[in-house]
């Protein structure tokens, strides 16, 4: 569905991506992770044609995205930028309605299908109850769901999101990620998101892309690729990787306590060769 070929992109003098080749799986939830300034947002923005590459191609279903009319792209690919500007005084239903832009013209400003799509999107993102509220009066979590509803109203097969959980508290982060997960599973959408939290990435992603310094270090299912070695490679951080007690997905725990009081670690909890440690008996159960 989405691929890049020999992609070179950056800002002004700085080259961020230098010859990147990447294929993202269809009907999967792909999460891109990496340290700050590793180029993950640049990659997402370039794939979403928000940034024009200096060289190379972004392919959408096999055709170069820059050769497609932008309205046509907007019917196949929804984008949620990192921190969209909330227009003053615009209501939720109004903003979600802007997602219908690629289907509208100045002489055809609204169709019954537009109304149905807006209703569907608001229900899916659980913002239907807020329809008449001004967006700038909502909380951060509500706002983010409204923005997602706007991109859902576009009725696209794929959805790209740039750090959709940043600035949200944990409960709202989970809420947004659950929504994206449901979109993938129930609506068969292809979802691609840049996330900061490795553990959330591991929990929700079907496909994980780890980047460092503008290049892809590893890509694949989190359970296969997310190891202590990879985290050291990508983030330069020593850690242990344990199975998450709830989901069994890899859970990354920094090994260095940095002055914080470390729990006594029993010898059996030392990382094994592959960087993982068995869950049972990992920590002393007393005092928990």
């Amino acid at each position, binding site marked *: 569905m989405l691929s890049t070929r020999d992609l070179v992109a950056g800002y002004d003098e700085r080259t961020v991506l230098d010859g990147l080749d990447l294929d993202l799986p269809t009907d999967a939830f792909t999460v891109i992770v990496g340290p700050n300034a590793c180029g993950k947002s640049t990659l997402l*923005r370039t794939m*979403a*044609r*928000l940034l024009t590459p200096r060289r190379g191609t972004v392919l959408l279903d096999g055709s170069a995205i820059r050769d497609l009319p*932008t*309205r*046509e792209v*907007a*019917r196949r690919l929804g*984008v*949620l*930028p990192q921190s*969209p*500007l909330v*227009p*003053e*005084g*615009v*209501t939720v*239903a*109004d903003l*979600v*309605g*802007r*997602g219908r*832009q*690629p289907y509208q013209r*100045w*002489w*055809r*400003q*609204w*169709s*019954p*299908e*537009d*109304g*149905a799509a*807006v*209703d*569907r999107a*608001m*229900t*899916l993102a659980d913002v239907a109850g807020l*329809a*008449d509220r001004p967006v700038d009066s909502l909380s951060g979590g509500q706002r983010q769901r409204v923005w997602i509803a706007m*991109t859902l109203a*576009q009725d696209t097969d794929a959805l790209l999101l740039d750090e959709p959980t940043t600035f949200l508290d944990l409960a709202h982060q*989970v809420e947004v990620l*659950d929504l994206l*997960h*449901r979109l993938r*599973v*129930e609506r068969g959408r292809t979802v691609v998101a840049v996330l900061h939290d490795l553990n959330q990435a591991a*929990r929700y992603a079907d496909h994980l892309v780890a980047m460092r310094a503008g290049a892809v270090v590893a890509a694949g299912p989190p359970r296969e690729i997310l190891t202590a070695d990879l985290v050291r490679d990508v983030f330069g951080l020593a850690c242990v990787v344990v199975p*998450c007690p*709830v*989901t*069994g*997905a890899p859970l990354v725990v920094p090994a260095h306590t940095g002055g914080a009081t470390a729990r006594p670690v029993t010898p059996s909890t030392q990382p094994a060769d592959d960087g993982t440690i068995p869950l049972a008996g990992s920590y002393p159960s007393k005092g928990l």
Partner: protein
Amino acid sequence: MTTVDGRPDSATIPADVSPGAARLPGRSLLRIGPVSLQVRRRAVLVAVVLTVLLLLAVVLSLSLGTPYVAPADVLRALSGAGTPYDLVVFDLRLPRIVLAAVAGAAFGVAGTLIQSVARNPLASPDVIGITQGAGLAATVALTSGAAAVLVAPTALVGGLLAAVLLFALGARHGLAAQRFVLAGVAVAFAFRALTEVVMLTADPIDGLRAQIWLIGTLAGKGWTEAAWIAGTLLVLLPVLAWAGWALNSTALDDDTARGVGLRPVARRIGLAGTGVLVAAMVTAQVGAVDFVALVAPQVARRLVRAERPPLVCAALLGALLLVLADLAGRRLFAPTQLPAGVLTAAIGGPYLIFLLLRGRRRSS
């Protein structure tokens, strides 16, 4: 609740959502054949009220003056009944009043477009240098003894020249709001300085004529000027119809706009280009009466309670304001006539202070 693989439970999602009624808060759909337009119900109400007020103001303005013509006689004359007042109503007063209405509407349109691109309620043709460009050209024409008929065309060229400079300076950053305003302020100051130079070196009488032109007046003007402005608006009508729709999405940031398939830079160039074209034309014809362009969009926006200035209501309000300002200029200190520009500026200063104070209170 979570499923076996730890993924969140999805039973909370409705299986399917019935296609509900169109989600258009506060708006109705206007269908004409294949055309369907979103219309704010409140904007329709405001437009109707403004039209009625405008007609009342026109009749009032036709009636007041020396000689006084009773409104009933004005209406009789307008209906073509043939009255002794035909000369006063049709030949002396109507041309100037129609010009006031048309010019006011044009300023309202220009102001709406410029403010939306500048994302700034204080932007107007004189903030971004169009007025100063026209002013410099007109001053040169008036002080060099050019024929009177040449003043307006020269001023138009000056205004358009300022527009070209503005676009050249602002284009490098995709005509982004800040850049657009900054470039405009620079252009405005440059042209104003040049105008001062021309004025100071000119014959004092010519300088005074230029000064009056710069303030902006409708005295001695009529059908010709009105026809030029109305013609421009008429030719631009298809563009304005597009603009009315495109204005809806100027509130989105560029990334979001591109995401929904818009081309924000092209859209800004289209909107700003239309705005400066209208501004240059109307300024060339009536001078710097541009407070109307500043205030009409903002007041119209508050009346309609929209998140952005409404184009049609701003035009109607601009027309109403200029007709009233011209009437006040004619009658307040009669027989002395004040240029309409003085009146509009007299209301403009306090309004600007009000906006600034309000802005400070909101930000504190």
